[in-house]
């Protein structure tokens, strides 16, 4: 043993200080469990805080303001063309991020949670070593892996290029590119494509799926798809990117679909099509922690891995990559570690695409119900459908209820249009409570407000 090395006994080690890891640590400490957090960064909050949600949210807010200002002309209010100071925008986002990181730091200190910088690696079923810096060894009673996932680079391109970005880079661009290709038709791809299109880029969106947002019901996506057709230069469904070539004038991209191949040059390429669980440096095999076929950590409903001492939460356990899922699972793991019998049994994980118009759904979708063979009945009520909405004369989103045909119990709710991102919270509560359509129909909702179609749809179920 090298001089200065010693093994420290700790109760619970949380590996990763992102939203999931922090909520696990905070909850464990709250329940009286001695907890330390090990994180590669020197600040808490993880990628979600520092390179993701806040930045994206800020940009989406800008896009929304521009559109609302635009729509105001219908009411006789006119603004001049906006000018966008990108550096200022990044600074504003950065300040918000710092405030939130400081808040996490304060909460941890208040609960005596020690934060240790460094990369953790398992040396055995209950041994951890922090390799960078002075080597430190830990003997733990329990460990929580919350190392998240990272974006995969696009296949067929150079490994590093300033013109090829993942979502982290996309939120830190110093100027608005003239042309941009977004690879990936999931929520993040669609959100970023619409942000840059609104900021003035000529954006092309390519997806391997038959349509964008393939996980959502097609009728919910239709209004957004129509809007993107206007906003984007091009949407290429059912297409692959087979090669990326960096040239002087930009990145030359090769596309392939059933119809053949095509080549186009873009200033920037943004790849958000795939992610991989961050398990590489952990040496999970040494701790007898099993991974699934996608390389994510296999867990049960109590977030326990195949090693009963070790739990895993959030993105490192696989899709869907949602901050709120990670936080929830973090609390479950902490409660189990403290001797509780919690399980992660969310029945309505809300999914939101923060676009214009926004889309949100939770519970089962109509296509899932059909594919799995669950008996269901669908009632759809259109909002007033005006995409200029956002509080100006619009009566709310298109609202779709999927109910059990016999009991009329809510199985899923889908929303598309203004207010969807906020209203889905009501739907999630109704689903978790096991509400029947009549419960929703019997709830007095405000007027005039975005929730009108929700009440109307519930009343129609029994008609």
């Amino acid at each position, binding site marked *: 043993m090298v001089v200065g090395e010693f093994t420290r006994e700790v109760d619970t080690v949380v590996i990763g200080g992102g939203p999931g890891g922090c909520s696990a640590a905070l909850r464990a400490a709250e329940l009286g469990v001695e907890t330390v957090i090990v994180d590669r960064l020197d600040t808490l909050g993880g990628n979600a805080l520092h390179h993701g949600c806040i930045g994206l949210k800020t940009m989406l807010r800008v896009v929304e303001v521009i559109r609302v200002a635009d729509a105001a002309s219908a009411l006789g209010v006119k603004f001049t063309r906006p000018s966008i100071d990108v550096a200022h925008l990044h600074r504003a986002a950065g300040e918000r991020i710092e405030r939130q990181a400081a808040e996490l730091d304060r909460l941890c200190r208040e609960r005596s949670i020690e934060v240790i910088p460094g990369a953790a690696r398992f040396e055995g079923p209950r041994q951890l070593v922090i390799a960078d810096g002075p080597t430190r060894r830990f003997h733990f009673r329990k460990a929580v892996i919350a190392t998240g996932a990272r974006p995969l680079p696009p296949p067929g391109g150079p490994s590093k290029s300033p013109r090829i970005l993942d979502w982290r880079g996309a939120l830190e661009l110093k100027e608005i590119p003239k042309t941009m290709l977004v690879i990936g038709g999931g929520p993040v791809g669609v959100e970023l494509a619409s942000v840059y299109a609104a900021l003035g880029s000529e954006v092309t969106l390519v997806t391997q799926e038959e349509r964008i947002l393939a996980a959502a019901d097609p009728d919910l996506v239709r209004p957004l798809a129509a809007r993107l057709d206007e906003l984007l230069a091009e949407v290429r469904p059912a297409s692959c990117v087979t090669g990326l070539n960096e040239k002087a004038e930009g990145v030359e991209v090769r596309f392939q679909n059933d119809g053949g191949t095509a080549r186009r040059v873009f200033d920037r390429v943004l790849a958000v099509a795939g992610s991989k669980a961050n398990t590489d440096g952990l040496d999970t095999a040494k701790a007898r922690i099993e991974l699934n076929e*996608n390389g994510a950590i296999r*867990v049960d409903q109590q977030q326990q891995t195949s090693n009963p001492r070790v739990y895993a939460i959030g993105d490192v356990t*696989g899709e869907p990559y949602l901050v709120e899922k990670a936080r929830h699972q973090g609390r479950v793991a902490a409660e189990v570690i403290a001797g509780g019998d919690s399980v*992660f049994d969310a029945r309505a994980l809300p999914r939101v695409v923060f676009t214009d118009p926004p889309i949100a759904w939770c519970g089962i979708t109509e296509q899932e119900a059909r594919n799995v063979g669950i008996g269901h009945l669908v009632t759809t009520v259109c909002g007033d459908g005006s995409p200029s909405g956002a509080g100006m004369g619009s009566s709310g989103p298109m609202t779709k209820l999927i109910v059990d045909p016999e009991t009329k119990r809510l199985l*899923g709710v889908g929303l598309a249009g203004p207010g969807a991102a906020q209203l889905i919270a009501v739907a999630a509560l109704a689903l978790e409570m096991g509400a029947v359509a009549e419960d929703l129909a019997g709830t007095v909702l405000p007027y005039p407000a975005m929730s009108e179609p929700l009440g109307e749809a519930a009343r129609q179920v029994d008609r």
Partner: protein
Amino acid sequence: MPTDFRLPDLGEGVTEGQVVRLLVAEGDQVTEDQPLLEVETDKVSVEIPSPHTGVVAKLHVVEKQVINVGAVMVTFAEDFSTPAAAVEPKPKAAATAPAAARSADGPADTGVTVARTVAGRTKPASPAVRKLARQLGADLQTIEGSGPGGRVLRQDVERAAAAPSPQAVPDQWGPTRREPMTRARRTIAQVMARSASTIPHVTDTDDADVTDLDRLRREYHGRKLTILTFVVRATAMALQEHPLFNARFDAETGDIIYHEYISIAIGVHTERGLIAPVIRNVDTLTIPQIADELEALAEKARRATLAVNDTRGGTFTISNAGAMGGSRYSTPIINHPQSAVLSLGRTRLQPWVVKGKIVPRSILPLSLSFDHRLIDGANEVVFMQAIIGLLQDPAELG
């Protein structure tokens, strides 16, 4: 990496089953297709064969436990996950394994997929009530919810958790014993209560002189057949002429739904209770074919290898109570949603008046219950006489 084996989909609509018997123990070496355990669903019990050859590392279920489709039953010590074409469980009685079973088998890693996939099959209950159930050790899926849409409420969980365990409990007058019903018994209880409380039953009784038939059946084309075989044939013929008895009443719309096929359920007593497997399209079968079908059903019932779908889709039911001994007349309960049921008593020699003389004849007592919403007594008399006529003149049964 050990491999989990989950309860596969057991056919249309079945979402849970009760473990009747464990046939292996932890540590046992098993071969592919060797029965691992016996699971009872609505009315059928199924042996679940092993999908692999390997060692049982862990049993996750105990006898009498109710488990949901997709729940882990057994963990094998070995890793069978490598071949990408994952293990397709193939229970003997399973019809098809639809997507539900597969997706529940798949990426269960986050628990999210499962929770979302089975959203339509889980008991409705709020998160707080679900947590309470876990804390009190009550199985939410087995609790009858008293809230709207069957929602499980706090008091339902508390009541279930407080329910006395199956042991001796004295009441005011002496000791009693409380035992949970088997799943099959519970299903029978539900079905019978629904039938008796929703269908206005009327029962008529009569006799058929089967002396000639009894002689014929002993040597029918070199084969000894049961009286039941001929009753099935006679009933099928009578149903063709009297479609009301092969119909059902749709109380919601007030319509009568006529079945344009004749499939007769045969009530059989088994170790697990009453069960009614169906012979399909009986009107197209010859007497020897009916006899073959009856034998096959009896064999399946004895071995408890009937599939769920074997007991579904009947349009009329015949109950052979006489086969069990002394029974004469009864008031059979209609097999919901059918419109009538025929029960056979035991055939025996009776003093009978034939052409003014008392002679010994073989008499088969018949009891017929019918749904008075669809059918009146006058219809019934004609139908009963049609069956009796055919049984008394077996040449007509051809």
